[in-house]
């Protein structure tokens, strides 16, 4: 019954996501594209945070590197979409392998600080290497690669076609993350989140497992970054800055880090708030802060996590009553 309800909500949501552009104009479609991309970014972050217990404050490094790889490929090599995205993913994953090799040696606040440090080194790199990255201007003026599916080629210029492409890619990687989390590997990650020391006493090399998780999170963040660079028609240093790393943190804690789709709801809330508030006032941050604080205080498991807990308690109460 509970499982059925979950599947029902999931099917309806996916159906809505596929049908939405049929009824919506360019702006809502673009808006939703960005939310979907950031949902994937936040979910990749949450593999580390919610499932492994590691708070990364430099996750934008891999988002940004994916974006830069994509933009450079589009600008210089004109290869089609899927290989480009694949290369972006590999670039981000390889960087995560190198940076992660160092970061996983520490945990808690020290891990957060190390990821911040390495993330900002990547930021300096893209900011200063003008000949390659265009410095603070970033890379612009490239064309979105063609999507070549062997049987048919698609142009992804229009917001609608790009939306569908981004949606499918994000769904595939969401499924990927879901499988990882529900695998034996995922169980070890969750056990490390609960008690890393205990895990080493059952014979697991926790550093190695953290490293693998870090690489997977980097790979998926790279995909999200590649998509975002195409969506934005631009790769800029802001994609790599720590303030970009703060976004998935915010979204995930907002939505709920212990629930698989928590980061998605968090991303949705974040963008809806931003969009609504900026219509009325320039200073949207003060409102974001004013809304964030009560959410943090009154929704201890994030919005989705807390709602699910309430639902469970309600069901239990109803069960006892009946």
């Amino acid at each position, binding site marked *: 019954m509970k499982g059925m309800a979950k599947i029902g909500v999931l099917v309806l949501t996916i159906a809505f996501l596929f049908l939405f552009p049929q009824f919506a104009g360019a702006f809502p479609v673009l808006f939703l594209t960005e939310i979907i991309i950031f949902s994937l970014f936040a979910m990749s972050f949450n593999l580390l945070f919610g499932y492994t217990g590691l708070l990364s404050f430099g996750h934008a490094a891999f988002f940004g590197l994916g974006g830069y790889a994509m933009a450079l490929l589009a600008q210089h090599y004109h290869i089609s979409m899927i290989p480009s995205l694949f290369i972006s993913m590999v670039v981000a994953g390889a960087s995560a392998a190198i940076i992660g090799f160092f970061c996983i040696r520490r945990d808690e606040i020290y891990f957060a600080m190390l990821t911040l440090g390495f993330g900002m080194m990547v930021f300096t790199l893209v900011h200063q290497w003008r000949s390659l990255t265009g410095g603070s201007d970033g890379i612009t003026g490239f064309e979105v690669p063609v999507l070549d599916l062997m049987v048919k080629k698609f142009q992804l210029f229009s917001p609608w076609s790009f939306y569908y492409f981004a949606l499918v890619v994000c769904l595939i990687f969401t499924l990927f993350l879901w*499988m*990882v989390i*529900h*695998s*034996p*590997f*995922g*169980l*070890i990650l*969750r*056990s490390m*989140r*609960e*008690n890393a*020391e*205990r*895990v*080493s*006493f*059952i*014979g*697991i*090399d*926790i550093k190695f*497992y953290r490293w*693998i998780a870090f690489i*997977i999170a980097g790979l998926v963040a790279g995909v999200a970054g590649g998509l975002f660079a195409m969506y934005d028609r631009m790769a800029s240093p802001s994609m790599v800055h720590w303030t970009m790393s703060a976004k998935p943190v915010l979204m995930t804690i907002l939505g709920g880090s*212990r629930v698989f789709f928590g980061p998605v709801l968090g991303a949705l809330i974040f963008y809806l708030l931003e969009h609504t508030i900026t219509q009325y006032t320039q200073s949207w941050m003060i409102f974001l802060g004013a809304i964030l604080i009560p959410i943090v205080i009154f929704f201890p498991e994030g919005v989705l996590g807390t709602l699910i807990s309430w639902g469970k308690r309600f069901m239990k109460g109803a069960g006892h009553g009946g």
Partner: protein
Amino acid sequence: MEDKVILSIENLSKAFGKFYAIKKVSLQVSKGEITALIGPNGAGKTTFYNVVTGKYKPTSGRILFMGREITNLPAHKIARLGLGRSFQITNIFLENTVEENILAALVSYHRKGLSLFKGMNRYKDLLEEAHSILEMLGLKDKAQETAKNLAYGDKRLVEIGIAMAVHPKMIMLDEPTAGMTPEETERMVSMIQTLFQETGITFFLTEHDMKVVFSIAHRIFVLHQGSLLAQGTPEEIRNNPKVKEAYLGGSLDA
């Protein structure tokens, strides 16, 4: 003789700064027995455990497990060799289900940890094994409960279950009855005896409850201020004047 020894400690010392928590301890644990390590509070029992199982590096000395030197190996490698342990403070995966607590250890033992795409629920053999362990512990009905919601005594059993699930050759229990009510203690003691009889695993435990120690241990080591004070059968220890003195009389006869 050589074959019978499973764990051999030679001149083991551990210092924190200038303070020696363990001073030149040498002892040998025999295979297929229940051995107890006792000593007044602060004698260095937990530090000794932490050094042997790789949580701390020893300052000097050697540790051999099944004839292999494990002195400076990291904890996870020592565990892999078949030296399991439990903790004095309950040290389980609180937000995971009871079943998942056991499964994590089984995943490690069966080397399935790097399986990334096959769902955990499709490993029927591991699930069955987890259930048989939970059945042995009397926790089968609670398999799906979140571990943090268990009663204290049950949490301690999960702790033992995790240690058992990695198929250890020898298991080190750090105060398995710490903080338990008399009923819970009794249940734990009979559980340890059952596990010992059914699996033949070597048990090495620390314990503050002398009644428990004298009723289940075949051999006892006494640690006092970081040094080994005495060793022998329960009978020998009970009558050892040095031990009595260390405990200020009294509690040994409890």
